[in-house]
């Protein structure tokens, strides 16, 4: 088997909650040894976020935490104790990457600011991922995925024009834009380090990757004086494009028509005179009547079972997909099953629990989560023995003294 891409890379991980932990999870699932520095005194609040295994709350039972922390090891350290900080410094001395998503200044207060650490380890890559970055008048603002969605304009542009914005219904920037950009930046910096020996500081404001993924509003405003607005499921270049009801309770199908030939196929499959109007044969006529087309389509699609209609439309070259919920995806989607997307990893408190595999497959061999999320402090002994050569009795004494807790 080919070695994992990041085998041999060590990450000392101070990230917590959403985007930060997802970033280091990506690195861990690619083979890096990610050591999550935690404390029983100040928990990663995601450890106490639903859902819980069996519905029973506990610091080692959150499925949300688990999926964000696969393939990582956990050490508990009291960073308020000088001896704790010294042990962490010793770990960082031999590490490649230190990651955090605190507000600026917090890492310095903990004794692990960049200037301190680079003095010890000039090859260190240090990534900070606060909401607004290390510099600027609003650097101390605290943010969540949803407030980042708001300030970037992403939330305000998502939803129906005549109703309030709805966004994704999630903290979207936490789950894709920030983790992927953070992981990409760290790997780029690893390449530079391997070529030159030089480490560096990566300052990633969590607003900025999200903005990089939506260039059109600011460009359209400058070039055309146009203020982008919410358009529901419509998109220029496709008519119709929408989400329509099918048989069942709250069941839907997404259909996009890109050209006249696709429209003709749709009309043929739905085979109903109401929709076979000559004025809708060409895109211009459909654009003019898009509201009425939606009304007619709703009437026709709800007679169909979603998967049947999807298969028929796909067989004629249309982009059509049923709206799948979590149960559909986990239990029934034959494509995800074929690709082995879902991974069940054994965990001593949670049993076999569900993890996302990565959305990519490597021809050379398996890639993705290697083991389940750690128990709080599960690897404290193992890491200190292996990395710093401490004896079990020394570690036990430091635990008893409140240093490794």
């Amino acid at each position, binding site marked *: 088997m080919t070695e994992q891409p990041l085998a041999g890379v060590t990450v000392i991980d101070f990230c917590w909650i959403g985007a930060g932990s997802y970033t280091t999870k990506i690195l861990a699932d690619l083979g890096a040894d990610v050591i999550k520095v935690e404390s029983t005194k100040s928990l990663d609040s995601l450890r106490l976020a639903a859902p819980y295994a069996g519905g029973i709350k506990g610091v080692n039972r959150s499925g949300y935490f688990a999926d964000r922390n696969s393939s990582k090891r956990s050490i508990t350290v009291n960073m308020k104790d000088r001896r704790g900080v010294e042990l962490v410094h010793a770990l960082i001395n031999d590490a490649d990457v230190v990651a955090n998503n605190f507000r600026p200044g917090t890492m310095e207060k903990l004794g692990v600011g960049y200037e301190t650490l680079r003095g010890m380890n000039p090859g260190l890559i240090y990534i900070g991922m606060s909401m607004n970055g290390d510099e600027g008048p609003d650097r101390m603002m605290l943010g969540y995925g949803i407030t980042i969605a708001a300030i970037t304009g992403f939330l305000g542009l998502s939803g129906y024009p005549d109703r309030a914005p709805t966004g994704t219904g999630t903290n979207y920037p936490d789950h894709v834009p920030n983790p992927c950009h953070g992981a990409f930046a760290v790997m780029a910096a690893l390449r530079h380090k391997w070529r030159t020996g030089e480490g560096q500081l990566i300052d990633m404001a969590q607003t900025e990757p999200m903005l990089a993924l939506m260039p059109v509003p600011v460009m359209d405003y400058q070039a055309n004086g146009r203020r982008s607005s919410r358009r529901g499921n419509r998109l220029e270049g496709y008519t119709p494009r929408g989400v329509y009801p099918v048989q069942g309770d709250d069941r*839907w199908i997404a259909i996009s028509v890109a050209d006249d030939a696709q429209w003709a196929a749709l009309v043929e499959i739905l085979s109903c005179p109401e929709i076979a109007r000559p004025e809708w044969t060409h895109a211009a006529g459909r654009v003019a009547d898009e509201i009425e087309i939606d009304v007619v389509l709703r009437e026709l699609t709800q007679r169909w079972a979603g998967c049947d209609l999807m298969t028929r439309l796909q067989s004629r070259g249309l982009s059509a997909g049923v709206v799948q919920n979590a149960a559909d995806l*986990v239990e029934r989607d034959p494509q995800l099953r074929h690709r082995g997307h879902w991974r069940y990893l054994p965990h001593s408190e949670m049993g076999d629990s569900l993890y996302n595999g990565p959305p990519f497959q490597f021809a050379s061999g398996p890639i993705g989560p290697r083991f389940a999320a750690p128990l709080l402090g599960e690897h404290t002994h193992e890491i200190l023995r292996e990395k710093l050569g401490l004896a079990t009795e020394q570690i036990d004494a430091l635990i008893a003294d409140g240093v490794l807790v």
Partner: protein
Amino acid sequence: MTQSALSGIRALEISGTYGAYCGKLFADLGASVTLLEPPGGSPMRAKPPFAGDQPGPENSLPFAYFAANKASVSTDLTTPAGQARLAELAGVSDLIILSDHPDAGCVDLGKLCRGDPKLVAIRITPFGTTGPYAGFRGDDLSLMAMGGLLTLAGFPDLPPAIAYGEQGLLAADQFGAVAAIAAVLRAERTGRGELIDLSIQESVVMALENAAQTYQLEGVTRCRTAGARRAGTGIFPCKDGEIYLLAGGIGETAMWGNFAQWMVAEGIAGADLFGSSDWNDSAPGADHAFEAIFLPYAMRTTKEALYQGGKTWRVPVAPMSTPEDLLDNAQLDYRGYFVDIPDGHPLSGTKVPGAPYKLGATPWCLHHPAPLLETGAARVAHHDDKASRHD
């Protein structure tokens, strides 16, 4: 002289309407990226909106952004000459990114990888290259549906509503870039390349927050819930627009105390309620009680003032920004976030999003604009120069 993190990496991007952001992430950190276009130009050149609302190969705003920093070459992959050109370009590439180029079917990545064991190649498709849905088409809407994110978005009384900006396709580009750079790093260290098969549907599945685990562990299927609000959470009007307020924070983080102190300090009538021990933001009617106290204050306060208040009092709140707000945002301005499209393009001088991360030693850089369709041949020479330098 500042160095680039990815200088020396030569990438060939055979893209259509997606795949381009994957290439851009490489190009902006110094990789040499060549876009292979069909003779009429990349399909993204036809993607609206256009400058002056005039379609034309150099007028697409998305193309001007997503193809910046790249070189371009036009060739017809359906012809023997085009195949020879492909072989030649692939031969000087470390990475090939293949997505929905109109002639993607004429590119045999497996063969190219077998011919060059160090090559990394990534194929981005709607559902992956094998399996029961491998032949399915997918656009952003149908993939956000099939990937499950649509089921979480919108009001229960309306059909699910998609997120702005074709984010499903862009999610694939981002995960594609992550997979590709990991494989390139390994190829440089070990000499072993990789063939990567990326599914856009699965990239969307990565964004489901805790929905899959909520189903598996608690048997609950999350659905769209817009409009069901906890007091103090959601979008509220203010003097000059709207804000998003998350007064209670998320999970166990109790931020109500901070919010209550802020409101009391502002001297708002009735704000004592928020700090009282029997206040419960999830109780029936709490949202109305909240609005009766908060909205009169919000309606006389600007979104910027509310945002600054949140900063002072440690309460998560943010303006619902418009494009003008973003271009005027003091924080983004301080960081020099928006940058001009460089000279040499009809859209030169237009501000576009800049560095998504600041790498201290190897900074992000927008050094040249999107390639003009006509000058493709001139630009690819640059790619070949680099190739010969690093061979």
